[in-house]
């Protein structure tokens, strides 16, 4: 039971997909213009992520290794399209609210990243928990950024006006603001000492960009362990 809870906690904080693993930045930056968008996108991604992790984990012995990436992509794209069609047909009000985000999920590196790094090496149930954890972490990161951007940019949070309209600094609703707010959140996390995976790695010498490190990270972890620093007990490697 503990290892399932651990997956949840991992996705939320220690290996938060957006803030630590730097996956899924594309939709995170684009969508976090308002807090409500953050929740919408986050939950849609969570649903697709859980399904995708489950399917890929079930098929992990079947998918040939050399074409695994394209296979994953096909599976994910199908899942997303199916989700979109179903919501469009049967839940039109939800589609009005969330509709534009759903196609964006296809290009969300988190789903592929977790498929590659976790789901194809672990059992379906663990993969599902991982999906939930990562999805929640994604949602929280997006909502937090969305709240900040909405507050600074328009003076509202979830549509509730907190600051007078004239205080709006429009830049925060636009691309530069997205970068700045995320930089701020990550910097604050670092400053208050949240020991994320990235922090440990940065301190041990790598640049912390897990999205690309893959096997190189394994070697560095081994080195770090050899240096008598307690290595994090992560199962599985990092994402491609």
């Amino acid at each position, binding site marked *: 039971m503990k290892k399932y809870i651990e997956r949840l906690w991992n996705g939320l904080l220690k290996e938060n997909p957006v803030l630590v693993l*730097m996956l899924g930045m594309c939709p995170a*930056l684009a969508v976090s213009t308002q807090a409500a968008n953050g929740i919408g996108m986050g939950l849609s991604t969570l649903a697709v992520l859980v399904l995708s992790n489950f399917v890929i984990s079930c098929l992990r012995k079947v998918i040939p290794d050399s074409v695994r990436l394209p296979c994953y992509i096909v599976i994910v794209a199908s899942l997303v399209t199916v989700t979109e069609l179903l919501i469009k047909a049967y839940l039109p009000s939800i589609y009005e609210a969330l509709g534009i985000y759903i196609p964006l999920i296809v290009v969300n590196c988190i789903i592929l990243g977790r498929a590659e790094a976790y789901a194809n090496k672990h059992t379906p149930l663990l993969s599902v928990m991982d999906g939930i954890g990562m999805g929640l972490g994604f949602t929280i990161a997006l909502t937090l950024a969305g709240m900040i951007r909405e507050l600074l940019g328009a003076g509202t949070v979830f549509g509730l006006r907190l600051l007078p309209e004239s205080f709006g600094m429009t830049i925060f609703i636009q691309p530069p603001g997205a970068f700045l707010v*995320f*930089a*701020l959140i990550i910097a604050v996390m*670092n400053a208050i000492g949240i020991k994320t995976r990235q922090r440990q790695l*940065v301190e041990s010498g790598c640049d912390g960009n897990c999205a690309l490190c893959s096997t190189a990270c394994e070697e560095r972890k081994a080195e770090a362990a050899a240096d008598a620093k307690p290595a994090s007990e992560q199962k599985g490697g990092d994402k491609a």
Partner: protein
Amino acid sequence: MNNPSLIMIIVTGALINNVVLNQFLGICSFLGVSKQMKASISLGGAVIFVITIASAVASLLYDYVLKPLGMDFMKTIIFILVIAALVQIVEMFLKKKSPAVYKALGIYLPLITTNCAVLGVALNNVQDGYNFIESVLSGFGTALGYTIAIVLLAGIRSRINEKDLPAPLRGAPIVMIAAALMSIAFMGFGGLK
């Protein structure tokens, strides 16, 4: 649908609506690869090739196969397969003809498959209703914009010395701040007609 001049399509894709700094596509590799100038240039070149050809093929497939058959909903899958195939081809070609370059690119090459920018451009072309020529130019412009952005950021990062930075900013935050400042600069192109 208005038909903007062909030069404008390239300029729009590259500068005015820059794929990375405005559309937020391709951020993952943008933040990661820009650490090294050489890798950035190599990746940029590869991306230009893949996106331009992928735009062309996707446009043809959509106009002559998917749309007439009413299979619009299949476009995502088909486009991705095209992209995966293209990257595969590039990989095989480089491995044979230019092993040094292949090695230099290393892991970044297969990453192009998962680069949101590639799929994003193909889908955008469909949405904007571009014909074949326009799709190719739009793809080329977008990839050019990606290359410009990543190379410029690589230049900036080469100047940053981690030791000078306040501790919490080391690693990802300072790169994002640099990207924010670049984004502000590029907004100057925003008003161009």
